[in-house]
């Protein structure tokens, strides 16, 4: 089909919307990050001045930024792999042909994914309640407990990670299930003929065949986990002692609480840079290993 006007007609609304409300804001954010745009500039843009790299320099000197970066990486590097491992485990448990009620289990595991994060974060706040929470009750049954999950700077981030794994693992599980179904049965048969046991089949057939799926999952999980915000907002307000302050939380506070928009835009770009670097790194690794 060669009708160029028709193509333009169909594309125009999307391209206009994406151009005006996505591309333009991205470019504007870059410009914003080089200005000292603050609450005074909000009324009159003329008050904002170019300050070059000052915001970025200030960020690097801000202990709160390093704290938020460290927390975000803690969440990402512990929570990400943990949630992927649980997803894979759940997908493998649902793989054998003899397993019945698969539909039920799959739905049960997936249910937290579709729930509203803010609402279940409120629920989990009570699960973690130091005195009346279910978790401490269960721990007390085996003689442990008394942990102030959300009130102790050492435990607040692990508590948020645990909740995030609960909330998210079902999503990647579905992708892993599809990946497992895509592995030809002959590969397992061939491996079995070669005398490979269950564990060896898993290591020499399942894992390599799942590698592309795993890289894809790692990238989308990383992108999602970098954007940690609602959990600490609802459960800890970034505390205690800033132990759950994330990059996006800091960006929100700087930009929309204190209206330091130039500073906040610089933070947004640092977030973007990390996400970009992480994605490039992971796809490079995939190519290097020839998966």
């Amino acid at each position, binding site marked *: *089909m060669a009708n160029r006007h*028709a*193509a333009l*007609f*169909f*594309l125009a609304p*999307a391209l206009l*919307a994406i151009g005006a*409300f*996505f*591309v333009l*804001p*991205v470019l*504007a*954010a870059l410009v914003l990050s080089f200005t000292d745009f603050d609450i005074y500039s*909000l009324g009159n843009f003329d008050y904002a001045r170019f300050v070059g790299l000052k915001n970025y320099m200030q960020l690097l000197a801000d202990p709160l930024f390093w704290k938020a970066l460290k927390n975000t990486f803690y969440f990402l590097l512990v929570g990400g792999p943990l949630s992927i491992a649980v997803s894979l485990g*759940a997908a493998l*448990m649902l793989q054998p042909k*003899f*397993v019945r009620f698969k539909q*039920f*289990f799959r739905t*049960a*595991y997936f*249910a*937290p994914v*579709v*729930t*509203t*994060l*803010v*609402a*279940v974060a*409120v*629920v989990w706040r*009570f699960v973690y309640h130091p*005195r*009346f929470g279910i978790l401490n*009750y269960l721990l007390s049954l085996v003689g442990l407990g008394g942990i102030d999950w959300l009130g102790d700077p050492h435990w607040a981030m692990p508590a948020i990670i645990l909740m995030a794994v*609960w909330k998210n693992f*079902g999503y990647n599980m*579905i992708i892993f299930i599809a990946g497992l179904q895509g592995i030809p049965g002959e590969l397992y048969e061939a491996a079995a003929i070669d005398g490979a046991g269950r564990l060896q089949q898993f290591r020499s057939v399942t894992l390599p065949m799942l590698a*592309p799926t795993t890289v894809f*999952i790692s990238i*989308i999980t990383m*992108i999602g986990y*970098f*954007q940690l*915000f*609602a959990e600490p*907002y609802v459960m800890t*307000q970034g505390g205690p002692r800033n132990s759950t302050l994330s990059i996006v939380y800091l960006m929100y506070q700087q*930009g929309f609480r204190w209206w330091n*928009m130039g500073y906040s*835009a610089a933070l*947004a770009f640092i*977030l*973007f840079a990390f*996400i970009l670097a992480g*994605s490039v790194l992971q796809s490079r690794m995939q190519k290097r290993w020839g998966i």
Partner: protein
Amino acid sequence: MQKFGRFLLYLSLIAVAAVTLAPLGWMVSASVMPTGQSAAFPPPFFPKELTFEHYLRLFTGIRLARYLLNSALLSVSVTAISLAINSMAGFAFAKYRFRGRDQLFKMLVASMIIPSQVTMLPLFLMLNKMGLINTYMGVIIPGMAGIFGIFLIRQFAMSIPDSLIEAARMDGASDFRIYWSLILPLCKPILITLAIFTFMGTWNDFLWPLIVMTDDSMYTLPVAIANLSLEHVQDTELMMAGAVMTVAPVLILFAAVQKYYISGITAGSLKE
């Protein structure tokens, strides 16, 4: 030995299901407990007596109906508008040839990596200038077109044979007619999938409505719940009722259309 293995597997399957469902079950259960009953040790899992006072209070004292309406209105609008715009673009990318098409499409897909937080500050300033802060349009506008949606529809529409379109053209159908009466009906499965994704995404979204909706009467459910939970820290049962009202609509929707939702996840994860 094999039997024992199977027994262990079922045990683990059930244990995991218990972990995923227990917090949701407790949420429902605590929402019908009388005030204060959930704050006990050991924590009661079932209510000793049923009460719906918290739901009543949500609708009479706390204006939950208003938040429900805001959330529903925004989710439906964003879904309808974005579906129209994305399906047109997806169709064009799949079935028209024009210069730079593939490069443009690749650029769009690559730009999906840019986190939405990057756009939020300028978007806020733009909408502020346009007087759209604290309005429905403030939430609808950034959701009007989505690259992921265009991508899904394009992948699906590519599988529609060109011969079908040529035949319709021979019969004198206009381009719009082809889109409306041929492409859209054929794309129905992916459109339903995308509609569910968009609806749920908008319903559950938090950060952007939190920024744009500054007035209590404009809050969506998640924003209202977050606010309430910070104000009424002690009122557990009321909070649980609020959480139920927020989560129930999406859970029910999911239960009804699970097949489409699941297939959307796998469609989105397939590489070109």
